[in-house]
């Protein structure tokens, strides 16, 4: 009965109800998008870093991995020192550099990683095999840029001497595999070679040096404790656990998180105000009707229920429409932000997580309930005879 009366009341002003539902839907969509933005980046980044089981990144002191061109010297010694720490199961040294692939089309510049193929976590092999000495695996973008195919030989250099006008650190390498690089975008030209090759090509400046270590710890070991142990053993490095890296990324991208919070809060307030206004006006229009219901014995709580149901109905319909609209707009917004140069393929800014999404929509519906309570209680508390007389006289 209460539901029927509430539905009839909403249907009586179909255009107004439709507009209110549309307003709540847009607010819900915005709220949902902002929740997806606030939680999506963190989840997406955590999942990216957690791939391959590496829990700690070790970079030169005071830097983040690949944030500067600084390197860690005496890499062999450092590798052994990290390996000796309890709980460490694998250490993957990585040396980053720029290479020039020489050939008919002119030099193609690419980002190269020197890795230990046995423990690396920087790429997934799509075709072929891991690089041995004088071999590399390349990204599709690099293969496209050079026109090379699997098994081809490339002339690669790591530098250029302007005085002698010659490329330095030159070496002929075979394309042994095609790979997708985890931390790079699909458009990045990238290659991975054995660490020893990159160090040798770089000459004295890169001898026994690495850009970072990726460290894998045993499942039952607290990465934070291992991180502290690494910094104690090697005072010239900064060790960053996955949690620390996420915190740092969040700090750098705090603008988006705060924007999400502010816009999410505004959406919630707009939705609340809209439902409050609609229900209040609807109640004011039906003062006489409500007074008659009360006069014929309908309880106060019944009246309150009916009006609150109207508010909930508006919020629920709006939230359902907002869910669809929100998922659609999130895809659109995500496609815009995916345009950031150099963004790894695996990073999504908007990630639909059912728990967070439904919690946000439940909050909107709860605000709809709150929005209906005050006007409902006010209407149900009006003096019956005075209201009837006023309504009759007009």
């Amino acid at each position, binding site marked *: 009965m209460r539901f029927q009366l509430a539905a009839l009341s909403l249907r009586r002003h179909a*255009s*107004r109800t439709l*507009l*209110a539902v*549309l*307003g709540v839907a*847009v*607010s819900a*969509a*915005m709220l949902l*998008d902002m929740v997806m933005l606030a939680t999506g980046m963190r989840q997406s980044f955590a999942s990216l870093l957690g791939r391959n089981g590496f829990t700690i990144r070790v970079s*030169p*002191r*005071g*830097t983040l991995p690949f*944030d*500067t061109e*600084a*390197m860690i*010297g005496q890499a062999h010694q450092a590798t052994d020192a990290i390996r000796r720490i309890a709980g460490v199961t694998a250490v993957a040294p990585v040396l980053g550099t720029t290479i020039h692939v020489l050939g008919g089309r002119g030099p193609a510049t690419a980002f190269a990683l020197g890795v230990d193929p046995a423990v690396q976590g920087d790429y997934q092999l799509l075709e072929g095999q891991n690089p041995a000495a004088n071999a590399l695996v390349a990204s599709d973008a690099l293969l496209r840029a050079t026109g090379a195919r699997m098994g081809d030989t490339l002339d690669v250099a790591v530098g*250029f001497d*302007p005085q002698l*006008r010659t490329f330095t650190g030159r070496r002929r390498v075979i394309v042994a595999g095609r790979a997708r690089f985890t931390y790079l975008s699909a458009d990045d030209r990238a290659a991975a070679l054995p660490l020893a090759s990159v160090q040798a090509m770089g000459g004295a400046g890169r001898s026994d040096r690495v850009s970072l270590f990726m460290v894998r710890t045993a499942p039952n070991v607290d990465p934070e404790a291992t991180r502290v142990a690494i910094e104690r053993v090697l*005072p*010239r*490095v900064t060790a960053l656990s996955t949690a620390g890296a996420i915190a740092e990324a969040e700090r*750098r*991208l*705090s*603008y988006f998180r705060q*924007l999400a919070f502010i*816009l999410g809060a505004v*959406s919630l307030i*707009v939705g609340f*105000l*809209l439902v409050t*206004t*609609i229900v209040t*006006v609807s109640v*004011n229009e039906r003062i006489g009707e409500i007074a008659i219901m009360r006069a014929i014995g309908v309880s106060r709580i019944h009246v309150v229920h009916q009006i609150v149901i109207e508010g909930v109905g508006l919020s629920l319909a709006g939230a359902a429409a907002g869910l669809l609209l929100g998922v659609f*707009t999130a895809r*659109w*917004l995500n496609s*815009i*932000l995916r*345009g*950031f*140069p150099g963004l790894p393929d695996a990073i999504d800014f908007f990630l639909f997580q059912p728990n967070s999404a439904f919690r946000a929509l439940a909050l909107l519906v709860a605000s709809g309930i709150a929005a209906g309570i005050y006007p409902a209680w006010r209407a149900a508390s009006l003096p019956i005879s005075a209201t009837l007389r006023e309504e009759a006289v*007009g």
Partner: protein
Amino acid sequence: MLAPLVMALALTPDALCAQRIDSIPPWRVAVRTVAIDERLAVDAGLRVGDMVVLAAEPGRASGDTVRISAIVRRRADPSEVARSEYRIRMHLGGLQDLIGYGDRVDRYAIATAGGVAADSALRRINALAFGFHAYPSREIAVETSKTFVVVSRFHRAIGMITIVASATFLLCIMLLKVDERRRDVAAMRLMGISRATVVRAVMLESSFVALLGSLFGVGLGFVVSAFVNAHYQGVYRTPLRFAIITPGTVTYSVLLSLVLGIGAGALAARRLSRTPPLTLFGR
């Protein structure tokens, strides 16, 4: 010894691209000098005149003892906003010695008379210098501003959604506001006032409400933008302004609000004026 790793830029003193906020007179300078970032000075508790040791790598025993001759403040550069590293400006030779870079530089910035002179200089450098490539500044600006193009597109998209949300809200409110006047409209119609006059009166009222609302919104916008700027300038330690209200923004939002308000008012007024007065009275 400086604990944090410092990213050093080698520049001649005249080319310091930051604002000098404190310095010592040149005649008092005897040892090699550097200029440091204001944020490094604050975080490390350094002052002009302090002696520090610079090393190319953390933990290296040997280093270069220098005197801080100036503390500089970074200019508002959006490309640096999320970067938190410290910066030291050194003489070119000092940095080359410190990092064992030899007689090499990463790049040159070349000033020209502009226009044709820049184009011809570019052509001549690229023709002469094997192994180098000269780029016009605008090309570099386009390349380095890709991030901001994306952010700008994102802001526009968010703005569009916000406009749809606020337009719906405004339409709803205006319709309800006009609907509340049903008895007044009925009375006016019964007194013999024409439909057109009633519609005009209601539209005038709704446009007045929309104008008042948008003016209040503009005021709120100024307050919020001041808060946003103060907050993010503190978070990112930059003089950059994050929210700017331009006359164009104000005009656009006021016009949009007026159009929506008047449109909603017209819609509701037409509906009311076509309803028989007694029906509006509920009879």
